[in-house]
């Protein structure tokens, strides 16, 4: 039949509508029967029909490619990032993806789709794609989304996934062992200072600040996927004891020599700058008088952590305890150079509590 023939078919509008209506009704009844009478077999044993797995996985792969656009940090593959990522992985992801040098459990392998082994992941994806998958998760696969809005603290996990294919079981064990009964110490070190610059040192902080932060992580008021996971294993009642134990640590360590960047940071921290950046020292020390213990001490804090936090403050995305809004006001005019200078200055100071009253 030519296209002219198609046009010359009898065009009775009513019969076309009737036919379409009948088909729609039949489709609805069919779909209703599948849902209502349980006709579709959801069994993981029966697997998918031929071709369905391919369609689903190709959809997944293309959906990730379309959306993954984060820029990896320069220090993505640094040992510190890998170490932090390994510790979070051990708590949150190991159950399904196993660990380097160890097989997945038989149960996990029976999942549909089966979660890939940790050492088989990085070869399939670009870093920004890994970042997207870890942050967003994937519907109906069992892969959960990152338990925080913030996306920058996903990168350590990406770093670990990239290192996992070449990691030995022994290295993984060394990275993830923790002293008996002290889950904080696995990342933060037994004395509150781990030496990993990606992980904040806690020995300089006050009891009130640690307790407020832990509560904020638990409630979600402070946004961090890593700490949300960690705090889901800590009951509310344990917070005062943890805060007291961490705050009892006495910070030790030498001051670092100040470079030009740190000197710039010093001027900014002590006197404020540029007309709109208040002085940091008035709340965070070094200070002679007693300061509000809800303000964290920054003396000796690690520079990468400080930079990351200052960026979050500037974007009003940090959250935290009851006085967090003060810092959202204070940080909004910081430039990237200001942030680098302030982090360099505070990191160069000898680790110390909030003010010179020693509390």
């Amino acid at each position, binding site marked *: 039949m030519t296209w002219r023939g198609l046009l010359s078919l009898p065009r009775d509008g009513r019969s076309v509508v009737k036919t379409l209506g009948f088909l729609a009704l039949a489709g609805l009844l069919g779909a209703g029967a599948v849902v209502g009478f349980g006709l579709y077999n959801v069994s993981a044993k029966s697997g998918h029909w031929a071709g369905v797995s391919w369609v689903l996985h190709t959809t997944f792969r293309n959906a990730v490619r379309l959306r993954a656009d984060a820029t990896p940090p320069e220090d993505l593959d640094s040992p510190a990032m890998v170490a932090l990522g390994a510790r979070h992985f051990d708590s949150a992801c190991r159950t399904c993806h196993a660990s380097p040098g160890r097989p997945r459990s038989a149960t996990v392998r029976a999942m549909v789709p089966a979660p890939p082994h940790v050492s088989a992941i990085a070869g399939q994806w670009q870093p920004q794609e890994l970042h997207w998958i870890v942050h967003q998760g994937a519907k109906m696969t069992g892969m959960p989304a990152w338990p925080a809005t913030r996306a920058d603290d996903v990168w350590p996990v990406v770093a670990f996934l990239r290192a996992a294919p070449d990691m030995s079981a022994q290295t993984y064990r060394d990275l993830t062992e923790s002293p008996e009964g002290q889950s904080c110490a696995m990342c933060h070190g037994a004395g509150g200072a781990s030496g990993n610059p990606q992980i904040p040192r806690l020995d300089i902080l006050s009891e009130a600040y640690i307790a407020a932060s832990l509560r904020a992580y638990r409630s979600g008021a402070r946004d961090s996927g890593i700490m949300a996971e960690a705090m889901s294993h800590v009951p509310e009642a344990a917070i005062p004891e943890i805060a007291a134990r961490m705050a009892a640590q006495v910070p030790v360590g030498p001051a670092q020599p100040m470079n030009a960047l740190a000197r710039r940071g010093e001027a900014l921290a002590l*006197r*404020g700058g540029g*007309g*709109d*950046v*208040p*002085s*940091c*020292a*008035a*709340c965070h020390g070094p200070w002679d*008088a*007693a*300061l*509000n213990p809800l*303000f964290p001490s920054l003396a000796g804090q690690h520079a990468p952590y400080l930079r990351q936090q200052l960026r979050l403050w500037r974007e009003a995305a940090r959250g935290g305890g*009851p*006085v967090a*809004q*003060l810092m*959202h*006001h*204070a940080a909004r005019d910081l430039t990237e150079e200001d942030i680098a200078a302030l982090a360099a200055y505070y990191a160069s100071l000898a680790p110390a509590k909030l003010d010179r009253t020693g509390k």
Partner: protein
Amino acid sequence: MQDEDAQGSTTAPRRLCWGGGALLLTACSGPQSVLDPAGRDAEVLAVLFWWMLGGAVLLWLAMNGLFFYVTRMKERAFSPQAADRLIVFGGVVFPTVVLAVLLSFALSEMPRQRDLGEGLTLRVTGESWWWRVEYRTEDTETPVISANEIRLPAGSRSELELAANGYIHSLWIPALGGKTDLIPGRETRMSLEPVTPGEYGGQCAEFCGESHAKMALRAVVLPPEEFAAWLEQQAAPATPPETETARRGQAVFLREGCGACHAIRGLGARGTIGPDLTHLGGRRTLAAGVLPMSRAALEDWLRAPEAIKPGVRMPAYGHLAAADLAALATFLEGLK
């Protein structure tokens, strides 16, 4: 009842009329009026305004009179010569003369309004949304810093250097003179010669953002010797608090990091982002003319500044214990 109602309804329009008239009249006097000058520059502007108003009224009457005469009274057309004369004289010569007189008067007054000051220089910076005011005399090394209040000695010309931080503003104290814009990245200047001591209102006169309408200031004109004494008192550091409550307030001030933004000379706070609070309690108003200077107003401001002035840089301190907040307000109010 019925009578009253009936009477009320008939007199309502008349009342409205009188009310409107009274409203117009109130605009002619008071502390923030161009027509109630208290300074040399405002006097010139007022004189200019009254002359122009008088002239405009006369011209309006003359034009309408002429129109009435031509359309209703005159029976024949003008002769071509008379029409030419009317056009040349009424349309060219007369306006040229009137405008030339007005222009030369206005131009002759301009240099005086840009005269250099006679010793006192103020630097006024438009912030978001308040005024930073620094006083410099010939014998002071460092400027005396204050905010939201401009004090001037009567009878001499003071110079104002104008700057802006972030947004454009305009400084206008109608009773003392004309307005001048404050422009980021540029320095503008004006000078004022107040005559009558008293308190006058000022306002930001250029839309500058969320709280433009809440960016007022107070101008206080003092006799010269009183001004000198006031400036000397302003230059001095703050008096340490004397009562127990005020001392507690000072501790709260230092503990909460208020010194990151505010300076209180002599008490250890050196911030430069917000207004200098060394003599806060001595000012007439709080938050750039928005609130009266009182302990209760200070407490309200500290608790929720955003509710009083949208977009303000000052964060809220509502999380402080009520007693701490009250002590802080007492301490600040005591900084005379």
